[in-house]
């Protein structure tokens, strides 16, 4: 019944890379936000694995905080997306490049 810790962290790493790829590729804002959520989830998984490896509850506490932060971020991010949709009438993020130079 022993799962090596590396496997758990490896799972987290794979999920993180997938999320990063999604962030870099997709132009739809919603998909980008989704990819960020994937990455956050992967990071939380890594914390849980580390906490479980030592039998401490600190990992779970960290995950709770990550969860809280993700919730706040999603709400504000979605509000921004709504705003952006109203202004640019599209969810293509490349449309919002006026802050250049």
């Amino acid at each position, binding site marked *: 019944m022993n799962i090596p810790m590396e496997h758990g962290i490896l799972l987290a790493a794979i999920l993180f890379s997938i999320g990063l790829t999604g962030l870099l590729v997709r132009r739809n804002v919603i998909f980008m936000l989704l990819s960020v959520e994937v990455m956050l989830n992967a990071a939380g998984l890594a914390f849980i694995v580390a906490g479980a490896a030592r039998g401490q509850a600190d990992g779970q506490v960290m995950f709770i905080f990550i969860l809280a932060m993700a919730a706040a971020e999603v709400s504000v991010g979605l509000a921004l997306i709504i705003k952006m949709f109203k202004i640019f009438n599209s969810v293509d*993020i490349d449309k919002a490049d006026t802050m250049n130079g």
Partner: protein
Amino acid sequence: MKELLWLVVAFPFAGSLILMLIGKRLSRMACAFVGVGSILLAAVFTFIVGVGFLHNNPSSVPFNQSLWQWINVYGLTPNIAFHLDTVSLTFVFVITFVGALIHFYSAQFMWKDEGFTRFFVFMNLFVGLMLLLVLTDNLLVLYFGWEGVTLCSFLLIGFWYKDSANGYAAQKAFIVTRVGDTSMLIGLFILFMTFHTLNIQDILTAAPSTWLVSSGPAVLTAFLLLGGAIGKSAQLPLQTWLPDAMLAPSPVSALLHAATMVTAGVYLIARTHVLFELAPLVQSVMAMIGAATLLVAGLSALNQHDIKKVLAYSTISQIGYMFLALGVGAWSAAIFHFMTHAFFKALLFLGAGAIITVLGEEHNMFKMGGLRKKLPIVFWTYLIASSSLAALPFVTAGFYSKDKIIWMSYASDKGSLWLWLAALLGALLTALYTFRMVFLTFFGNSKTEPTHRPGAFITMPLVVLAVLSFAAGFIELPATMGHFTLLSDFIEKTLPAANTLHFSYATELLFQLISIATVIIGIFVAYKYYYNKPFPAAEPERNKLQAFLYNGWDFDLLYDFLFVKPLVFLSRIDKNDFIDLFYKGIESLMGALHKVLSATQNGKVRRYAMSIAIGTIITLTILLFL
């Protein structure tokens, strides 16, 4: 009564200050009153102070009066203090007395001019600064006075500023004099470094024990001070500014460029005579410069047609005589010639100014003529002054002073036959050009009619100065003619006597007869060529040699070639400021970098995310594998 010395200096400054502050609100009469009155009071007080100084003071112990301390830093403590001895008393007397007469003259001369008040502000300021120069006891205040009179000269030459030629002449005077001032300043630096004080008497007492005769520092310092004197007194090679300064009003030419300012160099050398005695090389150079200058200027004066230019070159020539005298060690002869020259040259300039005004601003002598009957007072005073300038024997002051210098240039232990010949030739030239001027202006047919007679205030100074030009010589008669040595005794209480080699009376008499004969020959030649000859009323035609002499031996062209053209050439090369290219390069490099870096900020979020990812990879790589 000697304590009233400070009033002599204070009155001109006070006059200038009053006119500066409230002159606009005063009437013209009130301005004239203040302007002339301040110098008149200074002259009166000079007389009082002089009497007080000479009273009960047989050996003429110098009188020091310290007013306040000016600077106190690092051992340099110049005070506003006055040192009155026989030399400075002579100079003060000439400055205030001749100055007062010239101020009377200029009150009427400039009466109709719109800058009347401004004129007197500058003139009073000049007299105040000149008095400060000759009375002060330390070299720093002397330098302050030196620069101050240059400034007043600049202001007064460019007095009629609406004509730009006057401005250029003023600039030229300032700049050329500045060259000399710089060398003098370096000399002052060396003096302070060596003696740690700039008090003149302290330096003069400490110098013989600090420097050996003809040692390096002594010669160097003497050369630098000589450079300053050359610039101020318009000697070779810095004489080019004085003929151009004749654009000033005639009273200015009389006061500054004849009687007082240009003799400041003579005063400086006489004051610091100990330093020059420690450097015999410099003294002989000084004598040679004086001799060369008097010949160059004399030949140039012979070719001029403008009456004031003749007088300008004549001034340069006469100061050459003074330098010659200083160079051979005849200190009192130089001061004597300074005094007589101040009288007759100021008179000549004032007379020329009167003539020019009544002829309607006509400067060309060839257009004048026949003024003998029309302007009798001007004619007789002018004739007396010209005779004094030409050293007409026995009856003029100029004869006694110039003759003394000519004799000393041979008889002194630093003199030589060549210097004597140069001085003699100079006397011939002086007589020639002076009487050429007189015959052209006053004799012959009248080509321009005078519009009016000059007023009383103009003729009164002329008369007084004429009397002085006649009588002032009698205070110093040479050994062969009565041996009356009032002035040289007076001066020799402060300055050393000249060392003469021993000559018999007969030799001296012979040399004097030769110089008298030279003068007579000169006057005769002028008579033969210029008396009652019909000249065309125009500028004369000149061949190449005459044109060369007319242009003052083309010194202006030489300096233009040596200094002005290279400077303009270099400025043209640097027209686009290529020296700043280095800084412009930095600026454009920054601009290019900015363009490059700003391209990375294109506003696209995915680009930023990608750069974060790549950055993470690179950092991890470095941490893991390096």
